[in-house]
């Protein structure tokens, strides 16, 4: 539902972009770099783009991807190969063209007074954390990152986090790197030790929910980035609703970032992918 008061709405752009590079950067994960001047110059941390991954005669819905990084004209997307859409994406190469709608959504809120932030991510939840970590570091915010993955070869964006974060802790389900176990086990010590002003979370919804509870117990404000299946990506179709204390919100325009304490976690999430 479009709110009458939504006046300061950003204009979404439809841009024809070309692929600059597309490389495997971790197990099952690619990094695609797009020449996308208009979107790259206006995107903010936590926003996403809606990509037309396959064209031609075929009907294929767009697929939403967070912007992992933006440098000048270049937009970087970190993607996990799951189904037809991401497989098509993985097959595109330098010079290929595709069409992008963006920047979309309400990204991370960065309070002016922020001095210390804790970023918690699991798997590809690291994607929307890239721009955030870089931006926070540039603002002089002290950044701690707690990053989880099933196994070491599936850890992404390690260099980016190493550069931007003062502290970067890792957990893997199989113990092949860092703490042996879930990333949530790293959160309480970091909350207690670093006393962050804000916790930013992205990853599987169940993980986000646990971290939100941990932050809430520690009295620290928490922002989560939620995934929903998206049709239009621009707020028109109501495919992507999230139940909140303020009613049904659209992940694509009212989110994907929400204040954790507004989210009614009982709402159904996308089934886990693996």
């Amino acid at each position, binding site marked *: 539902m479009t709110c*009458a008061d939504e006046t300061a709405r950003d204009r*979404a752009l439809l841009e024809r972009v070309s692929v600059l590079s597309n490389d495997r950067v971790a197990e099952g994960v690619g990094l695609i770099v797009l020449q996308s001047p208009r979107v790259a110059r206006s995107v903010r941390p936590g926003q996403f783009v809606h990509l037309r991954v396959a064209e031609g005669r075929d009907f294929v819905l767009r697929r939403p991807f967070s912007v992992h990084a933006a440098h000048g004209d270049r937009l970087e997307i970190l993607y996990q190969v799951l189904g037809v859409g991401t497989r098509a994406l993985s097959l595109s190469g330098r010079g290929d063209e595709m069409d992008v709608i963006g920047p979309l959504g309400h990204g991370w809120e960065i309070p002016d007074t922020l001095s210390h932030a804790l970023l918690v991510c699991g798997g590809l939840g690291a994607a929307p954390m890239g721009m955030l970590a870089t931006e926070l570091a540039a603002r002089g915010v002290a950044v701690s990152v707690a990053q989880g993955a099933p196994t070491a070869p599936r850890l992404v964006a390690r260099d980016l986090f190493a550069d931007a974060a003062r502290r970067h802790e890792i957990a893997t389900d199989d113990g092949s790197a860092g703490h042996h176990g879930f990333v949530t086990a790293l959160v309480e010590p970091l909350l207690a030790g670093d006393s962050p002003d804000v916790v930013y979370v992205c990853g599987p919804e169940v993980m986000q929910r646990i971290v939100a509870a941990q932050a809430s117990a520690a009295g620290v404000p928490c922002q989560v980035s939620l995934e929903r299946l998206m049709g*239009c990506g621009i707020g028109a179709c109501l495919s992507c609703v999230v139940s909140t204390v303020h009613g049904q919100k659209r992940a694509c325009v009212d989110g994907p970032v929400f204040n954790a304490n507004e989210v009614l976690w009982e709402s159904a*999430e996308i089934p886990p992918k693996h």
Partner: protein
Amino acid sequence: MNQTVNMKVRLGSLELRNPVLTASGTFAAGREYSDFIDLSTLGAVVTKGVSLHPWAGNASPRIAETASGMLNSIGLQNPGVEAFCAGDLLWLATQDVPVIVNVSGHSVEEYVAVARRLESEPTVSALEVNISCPNVDEGGMAFGTSCPAAAEVTRAVRAVTSKPLIVKLSPNVTDITEIARAVEAEGADAVSLINTLLGMAIDTRTFRPKLARAVGGLSGPAIKPVAVRMVWQVASAVQIPVVGMGGIMTADDAVEFMLAGATAVAVGTANFVDPTTTSSVAQGLEAFCRERSIQSVAELTGAVRL
């Protein structure tokens, strides 16, 4: 080649600049799409379904992609007619495009109450009464799958509105012409079709339906042959104009519907893939006529050669 094509068409007393509408529920009230296209290039904006009171819609997931199509079970989520008038409708009043409001209800009384409330709104050019939503437990499609029920809703809404009245039909019926004739007899000025086909998809990994509500409505290019067939049948069975839709992605698809008997067409699911589709279909339709020296787009209506 510089010849101008008359693109105007009429739905009852409503004259449209061109035959291309937006399909209800796929375009909200057009505001989001105004980032991509000039709404004044469209025949009309057809809004998302509006009910008397706010509806929360169904649980998530609400969509699933299928071969050449998608399932949705949005469930007519909307803020209710008052909030609609105070919000989207005020915005639409500032736009240079006719507005057709899609009217939803759980009961005949609800349809009537919504129509009554909209009667005094000058921004509303016409009503499209949705008796074909497959995504609500009460009302919706139940009214569109039985002649007496379809007739009853039409009669009741007709009694309270002086605006052009379009009734949106369900394809989930044995004989759609029967329903079309029933609503024509009760004073509908036009019929629109098709709403979505009831469908289901199951995730073989989790053994769960892909939609939280199990079933939903199938739309997109997959359903176009069924939609074209029904438009052809209905256009042959009634005198009132037909608005055709179901899987339109290109101007050629729109031509196909008009040849089958549609006076106007609506673009739905395609908006999600390319938000400029409505506008490019309108342009392409004009180009189609120009290239063939067809002076008025209305000549395409029912021009299929059997």
